[in-house]
């Protein structure tokens, strides 16, 4: 039993006990935030409370959260360029999977669209839809389908940037009448949120795909990868 294990065990027990104490001894709060959310729902522009919180009441959190996602991609890009990976054949090249994909893809896109649209009045929204999109992308890759538009680095990056830029743009745009950042006017709130969600879905999907690949797609082509490697002395 190493010192590391003992200290880990001790720390674990201490934290668990402290947490248990905290949970047992917890007083109930006086503030009732759910009520406030419910009261403000009519002004939020959407019908689903979680979406309202995510994209209206606490939209600033979501903005920063997208920045976190983007950060992961930036680091992945930076490291990929600094130390190009061995070019590798990607995809299982399974004809069956490819055939299935041809059928599955439209379905997945429909699901993503539904999730996005549903988000305004029931569970679902940009993140869920985005991850479904990402799943589609991942499957495409696994099936070995070469998608030219996914291999276009500039287009890819533009896609990555689109969501955050739109979010920021809308946030700043609504300030022109003199309101604080991200204050949607009531009559446009629903539309604006939908626009943001739409672009976010696309960006999140692309972000997750690039995170899965940990790289921009171009390095998949061996020649291109070598070329990339040559550019970085």
């Amino acid at each position, binding site marked *: 039993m190493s010192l590391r294990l003992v200290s880990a065990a001790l720390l674990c027990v201490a934290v668990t006990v402290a947490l248990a104490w*905290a*949970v047992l001894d917890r007083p109930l*709060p*006086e503030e009732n935030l759910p009520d406030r959310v419910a009261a403000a729902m009519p002004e939020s522009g959407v019908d689903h409370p979680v979406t309202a919180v995510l994209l209206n009441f606490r939209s600033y959190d979501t903005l920063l959260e997208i*920045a976190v996602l983007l950060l992961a991609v930036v680091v992945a*890009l*930076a490291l990929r360029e600094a130390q190009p990976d061995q070019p590798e054949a990607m995809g299982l090249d399974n004809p069956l999977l490819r055939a299935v994909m041809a059928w599955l893809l439209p379905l997945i896109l429909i699901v993503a669209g539904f999730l996005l649209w549903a988000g305004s009045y029931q569970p679902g929204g940009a993140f869920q839809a985005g991850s479904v999109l990402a799943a589609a992308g991942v499957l495409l890759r696994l099936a070995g389908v070469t998608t030219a538009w996914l291999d276009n680095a500039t287009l890819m990056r533009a896609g990555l940037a689109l969501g955050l830029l739109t979010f920021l743009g809308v946030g700043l745009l609504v300030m022109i009448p003199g309101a*604080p950042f991200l204050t949607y006017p009531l009559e446009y709130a629903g539309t604006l949120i939908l626009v943001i969600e739409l672009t976010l879905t696309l960006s999140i999907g692309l972000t997750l795909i690039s995170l899965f690949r940990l790289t921009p797609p171009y390095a998949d082509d061996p020649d291109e990868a070598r070329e990339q490697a040559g550019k970085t002395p």
Partner: protein
Amino acid sequence: MIGLWSVPLLFALPLALGILSLLVTPAWRPRLIFVGLPLLTLASVDVLARLVLEGPRIYELGGWEAPLGINLVVDGLAVGMILMTTLVASLCALYARVYLRDYPASSSFFWPLLWLLWAGMNGIWLAEDIFNLYVGLEVMGLAAVGMVALRATPQALAAAMRYLLAALLGSLAYLLGVALLYATYGTLSMAGLQEAAAPNATTHVALALIILGLLLKTALFPLHAWLPPAHGGALTPVSALLSALVIKGSFYILMRIWLVLGPEVTPIFTAQLLGVLGAGAVFYGGWMAWRQHHLKQLVAYSTVAQIGYLFLFFPLVTGTGPEAARLAWDGTLMMLVAHALAKAALFLSAGNLILAVGSTQISHLVGISRFRPMSLFSFGLAGVSLMGLPPSGGFTGKWLLLHSAILSDQWWWLIVLFLGGLLSAAYIFKVFRMSFREGPQIDRSITPPLTLDVTALILASASILIGLTAHLPLFWLRLGSAFGAG
């Protein structure tokens, strides 16, 4: 109307620039600073002007009031930190533009990371919402990790990994603390917490978790192990940014939450414990810095030591009289700002010295004072502030802390300040000693571009000047705080 704009611009602008710099070609990435720096400076100065003219204010994002929406707090403390960030980060950016020319194209990813880091930091300074602080911490922390990894050498990757693990663990502890606080008080807003905070088990556990998480992120002794490799091994402008600004982010949150929860909730025992850990950091960091052979590692350990001084804030502000508490507040903030300026200057000038002799070893600096007097001069000015010798920000901060310690009858902190100063003198002069030595002559040294020297010198001079004119910044920093009346 403009005032409404400059507050969100402080984080929106760097975010936008971060994305843009990802879209443009590597050669164009550094050039975005010529758009970003003036605008951010303008926004920061505008925020300051408004603070001075109109007083502190709350900015309601999305037009939603506090418990429902996320508010930003634009008080003296936040504005002070914003200005500090603008100054230090701008100069580091100017430095990096020249410095990174010699590095492979992949290092141009420094720029998107810089902007996102900046956005995260400004987000933290302005945040009034404890969950928003969590997201801000993640933006800042992950950007910092990315910067450390940028070099992509095995050492850099190991350092980045270690840093990342510490940062992740720290954030989770913080998040759990936030979860407990939300469950107890039903609000995430600091103003709401301040009103409702009561001493009970859940709050204490939450506070403990938050403290632990933030200590890990601030790298307070004995949780500092990740810092020296990360700060000492990174690219020079990255080291400067991380040591000067990033660790301040988590300390700042701790300071705010401590004051928000108030003296009823924050136990004196914990305060003293934090002070003791700070003292440990001062001694251990100073001792380790003195033992280093690698110039940037020395500077990195110096950061470990200097963090310790900041933590004297807690014992000096908790359970002491109003006068002592005010002095502790003033002194800690003076220390914080002075350290930010001086440490950035120290890293940048250390980078210049390393460029000049082509080696990171301190023993290779023999006779360098003859060839690079300006780099050494910046190093010296910054060193003066770190040693706490007059006239400098470090000295003024130390003076205030001493004053506070005497007023609150806690003489044991005097010893920490006394020995800490001597220890830092020992490691600073270790470098000087070598530079004055006339050993086997190095007849040539590479002359780094002037920009590198000038940026370091500006930062170093600022760390001196802030001590001489401390009156005004300290007055601004107090605006809107509990010590504002003093």
